[in-house]
């Protein structure tokens, strides 16, 4: 694999960049991100764990750490925000490209109860805060958060099982 990469590095890189990597590769990538997590000895060192995780995942994916672990090097997590990192995060546990994933997610979404469907649409498509969602659905902010969390968990497991 490494020889192949050396010979066709450029083309392969372009290919991997365009296509979503295989399930085995995402598992390797996940393991690598996890190892990075484990090496943090002082939890206080991380002000924003989510940004940290996204950044590590993206850097490792970009640098093809799966093909060549040694290349995964330093990073600067102060430069960008978590939502920017999320944009380029590879889909873990799924071999599907973005368009097919979204199409499948639409089907999964329809199986959710109406409160969960409305809550995620208001949050992720319309950008309402949890307080605003609660007001629109006439529930408490606690319940609004619960509907979104449940919907995410349910969609995630359905996607992982289908993927």
């Amino acid at each position, binding site marked *: 694999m490494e020889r192949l990469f050396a010979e066709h590095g450029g083309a392969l890189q372009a290919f991997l960049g365009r296509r979503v990597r295989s399930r085995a590769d995402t598992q390797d990538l996940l393991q690598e991100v996890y190892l990075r997590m484990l090496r943090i000895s002082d939890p206080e060192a991380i002000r924003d764990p989510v940004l940290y995780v996204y950044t590590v995942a993206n850097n490792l994916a970009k640098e093809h750490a799966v093909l060549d672990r040694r290349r995964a090097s330093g990073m600067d997590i102060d430069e960008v925000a978590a939502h920017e990192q999320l944009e380029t995060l590879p889909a873990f546990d799924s071999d599907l490209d973005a368009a097919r994933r*979204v199409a499948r997610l639409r089907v999964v979404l329809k199986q959710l109860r109406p409160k969960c469907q409305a809550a995620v649409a208001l949050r992720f498509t319309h950008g309402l805060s949890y307080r605003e969602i609660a007001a629109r659905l006439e529930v408490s902010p606690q319940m609004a958060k619960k509907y979104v969390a449940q919907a995410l968990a349910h969609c995630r497991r359905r996607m992982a099982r289908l993927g």
Partner: protein
Amino acid sequence: MTSKDEQVRAVIAEQAGEWFVTNDEGPLATEDSAALVAWLKASPAHLGEFLGVSVVARDLREACVDPDSSIDTLIARARAEDETLVRSLWPRVSAAVFPSRRWLTAAVTLASLAVLSLGLSQLWSVRPASQVSMPASVPALHFATRHGQQLVQRLADSSVLHLNTDSSVTVRYSDTERLITLTSGQAVFEVAHEPQRAFRVLAGSAQVVAVGTRFDVRLTPEATLVTVVEGRVAVGLSATSAAIIQVGADQQLRVAAAEWPARPVAVDAERTTSWLRREIVFDHEPLEQVAAEFNRYAPKPIAITTPALRSLEISGVFATDDPDAFIAFLRSLKGVRVEVTEKEIRVSRE
């Protein structure tokens, strides 16, 4: 993926969803950040579900755009939805082989009540093994695993036997007794509730009596380790009926004939039984111990050639059936060299 794995995954996904929302709501408080880091570090499965949930949240922005129905229609339906009529959001995969946790809890509760009404002596009778009545006509079933192998076996009474690597048991059921002999290795027993027939496990110098519960028994050359996951068991020596010790959930009792009676100590039973999920969990444990644990499963043994490395502390969750991932982890440690030879995996100081 088995239904039990999927149930565990579903629980982790729920936690991941909650963490995502907490973070999504606004900057995390310092203690929440620390708690999230701890949660993510606890298992690669946690990290995987968190990243998976994140990707779903991102994809939902597009997926929620529905040309066929407006957001107002969706809100109206959501408001009209009757909370009391909602069926469970989680269509649990039916657990045919594995009794659910709830079922076990119920069984344990019933078992405790039965014990109270019938009297302890009758049910929790720890007797010398030689006095356990087992007619010769009762057939004995043998189950065994090879190195690195595991086995799940449903028994005639619906109890479930999980055998770990290099283990063997004999199962004999009569009308009055369910007798299991662990002759080597480690096993977890999910005991079906049957007040009329005690479930008795003989392992080395120990005997464990249960009615309906879940517990782990591991035979080592020095002692027998009994760990209770749910419910309560009575433990004694197999040779005598003296000094019966009660062991409850998340407790472990070390049984050695020379050191009896012993006192149960508090443990994380989920961790002791992580082998059921084909995982081994280490929390700041010396490499020597970690290697010994790994060698129970790995096709090639790990040998530590630099004595100073024996005490190196290791934390993490590893797959028992994926030694390569563990080798990769060792390689990632500073100053550690890993050499894979034909016979063994040599770990030394760089």
